[in-house]
């Protein structure tokens, strides 16, 4: 009996019980679709977070003010404003920190922007010309401020693309806007960073020289963070050490345990984000796998019912010359066709959902080709594995017992 005959006979049997076969296939189908969606969701979230982190800049180290020690009371992360613009300038010193390529201090505050009669509240960042490079940004129109403008506390501002839009400035360069109550000249607009809505909007901000920000907006010599770019990905560790040593010296701290700042790297952010993500993906995939298992048990259940119901048919086929191997093969093919149909249907459903669902929710769903092909294969394997027992029961039936049953 050829494989072709076996397949045809299998399809005949499946089409002969449409409702039952359909429900069995549904079990597998849902399981496979769930696997594809959860894996896609996990990969999509990881890609989203990674791109958000990468959009901060490349080879980035971020120095944040850390815990302060006042007598015996130790504050936590960010409780002290220990970083200054002077610190940032010192870190830019090539002799002490050879692995640091660029330094950009960042003063972060909120501000109300007024252009004519339109006003808009947004974050105002004070920094240096290196900011563009370190944060991996570029200009859409106009130019960024220069080192001399920083030195002279110039009242110039660079706007994010969203901010320019919200202020109703169609030709912003050269126009004057108020930040707080101080007039600033707009000298450029940043190119859109294109980050998604779920993270902080990188296109809604106003950037001014750090000195101007300290003088006119915050009134303190401290900065919120210092962004550093290492010379390459491999020197990030060395750059971190150099920065730590330099800052400990500048702050006069002898015991590294008391350091009053924290250095985080992009890598550590990515690692944290992806470990959270993969834990979540594992959890979801586990649930999906359980639903696949349930689907597989459904296949076995239906195949057992099918064997019981078709005892006479099996007996007849054996009387006509079918060997146990042929009978076993027929039922295995039936089970694997059920599994495969569910797998292909589930993959189709999963892929359609992966395309459609992101239109309704903010999550991205990645379409993973290996996961799709893998789960179709798994579905077929499930059909075979859960078909083995029913098939060998059918094969073992004695023809006379089978023919005798009414």
């Amino acid at each position: 009996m050829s494989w072709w005959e076996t397949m045809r006979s299998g399809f005949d049997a499946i089409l002969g019980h449409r409702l039952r076969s359909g429900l069995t296939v549904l079990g597998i189908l849902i399981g496979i679709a769930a696997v594809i969606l959860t894996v896609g969701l996990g990969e999509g979230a990881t890609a989203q977070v990674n791109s958000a982190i990468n959009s901060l800049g490349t080879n980035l180290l971020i120095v944040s003010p850390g815990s302060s020690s006042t007598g015996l009371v130790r504050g936590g992360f960010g409780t002290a404003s220990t970083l200054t613009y002077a610190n940032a300038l010192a870190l830019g010193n090539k002799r002490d920190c050879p692995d640091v390529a660029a330094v950009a201090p960042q003063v972060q505050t909120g501000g109300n922007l007024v252009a004519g009669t339109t006003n808009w509240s947004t974050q105002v960042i004070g920094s240096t010309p290196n900011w563009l490079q370190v944060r991996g940004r570029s200009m859409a129109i106009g130019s960024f401020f220069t080192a001399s403008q920083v030195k002279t506390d110039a009242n110039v501002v660079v706007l994010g693309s969203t901010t320019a839009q919200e202020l109703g400035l169609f030709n912003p360069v050269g126009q004057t806007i108020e930040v707080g109550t101080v007039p600033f000249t707009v000298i450029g607009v940043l190119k859109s960073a294109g980050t998604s809505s779920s993270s902080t909007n990188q296109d809604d901000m106003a950037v001014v020289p750090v000195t101007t920000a300290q003088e006119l907006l915050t009134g303190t010599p401290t900065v919120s963070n210092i962004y550093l770019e290492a010379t390459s990905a491999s020197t990030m560790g060395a750059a971190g050490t150099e920065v730590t040593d330099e800052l400990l010296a500048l702050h006069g701290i002898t015991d590294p345990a008391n350091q009053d700042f924290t250095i985080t790297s992009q890598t550590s952010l990515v690692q944290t984000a992806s470990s959270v993500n993969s834990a979540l993906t594992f959890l979801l995939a586990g649930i999906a796998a359980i639903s696949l298992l349930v689907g597989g048990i459904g296949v076995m259940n239906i195949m057992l019912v099918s064997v019981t119901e078709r005892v006479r048919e099996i007996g007849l086929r054996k009387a006509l010359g079918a060997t146990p191997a042929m009978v076993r093969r027929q039922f295995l093919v039936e089970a694997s066709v059920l599994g495969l149909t569910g797998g292909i249907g589930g993959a189709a459903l999963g892929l359609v959902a992966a395309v459609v669902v992101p239109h309704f929710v903010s999550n991205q769903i990645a379409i993973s080709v290996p996961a799709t092909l893998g789960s179709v294969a798994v579905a077929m394997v499930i059909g075979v594995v859960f078909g083995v027992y029913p098939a060998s029961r059918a094969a073992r039936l004695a023809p006379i017992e089978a023919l005798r049953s009414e």
Partner: protein
Amino acid sequence: MSSDGCSSPSGPRAAVGDRVVPGPGRAPAGTRQPLVRFDSVWKTYRTGAEPVHALRGVSVSVMPGEYISIIGPSGSGKSTFMHILGCLDTPTSGRYSLAGTDVSSMGEVELAEVRNRRIGFVFQQFHLLARLSAWRNVELPLIYAGVPRHERRVRAMAALEQVGLANRVEHRPNQLSGGQQQRVAVARALVTEPDLLLADEPTGNLDSRSSADVLAMLDELHRSGRTIVLITHEPDVAQAAERVKRFRDGRFIDDGGEGR
């Protein structure tokens, strides 16, 4: 037809070239080899505490071209005899040769091949597959014989024509009358050109007209040279055969009365 009755041969090889005692009213079989030969075949079931002997030393021979009927009440063991004759079951002891080959010690796979090549079954309940059309039912044994697709269709059509159903080939069993269904079953039994046609109560589920129809068809097949064994509990049906053998308590009780 000949039967050894109670005498049993000295050994297995004695079956070949053994002298065959001709039954009354039957031309001597000459030196032809019997198609079926049972030598003191026993079948014992050990399901409960007491072993049940379904067959108690059955010895019988069927010559090629014979048409015999086996009649016995239910519980006489004739079904067990039929199962062993049809290679659906194996004897507990004794020897059964079919066309000169000892089939009593064969395994399941070999027996499946013997059933496929040498035996055509006609059952009381027809045993047609409801989902398949008439010709697809008839081609089933050819599928297991590994006959190519095109040839299967040709042969199935020919077999259906032989039983007078050439115009019903695409009908499903539930679109056919009982008599027609049984004729499809006969076509299925004939399609492999088997050595032995085994009919187990073929008229049991038919009205008298269809019964006569089926019996006439078996008669015609016999005239064309087929070897037929008909198993029944109805004396009228048994009389259709050339020879009648009575079965009771696990063995043949006479040496055959006249049929017809």
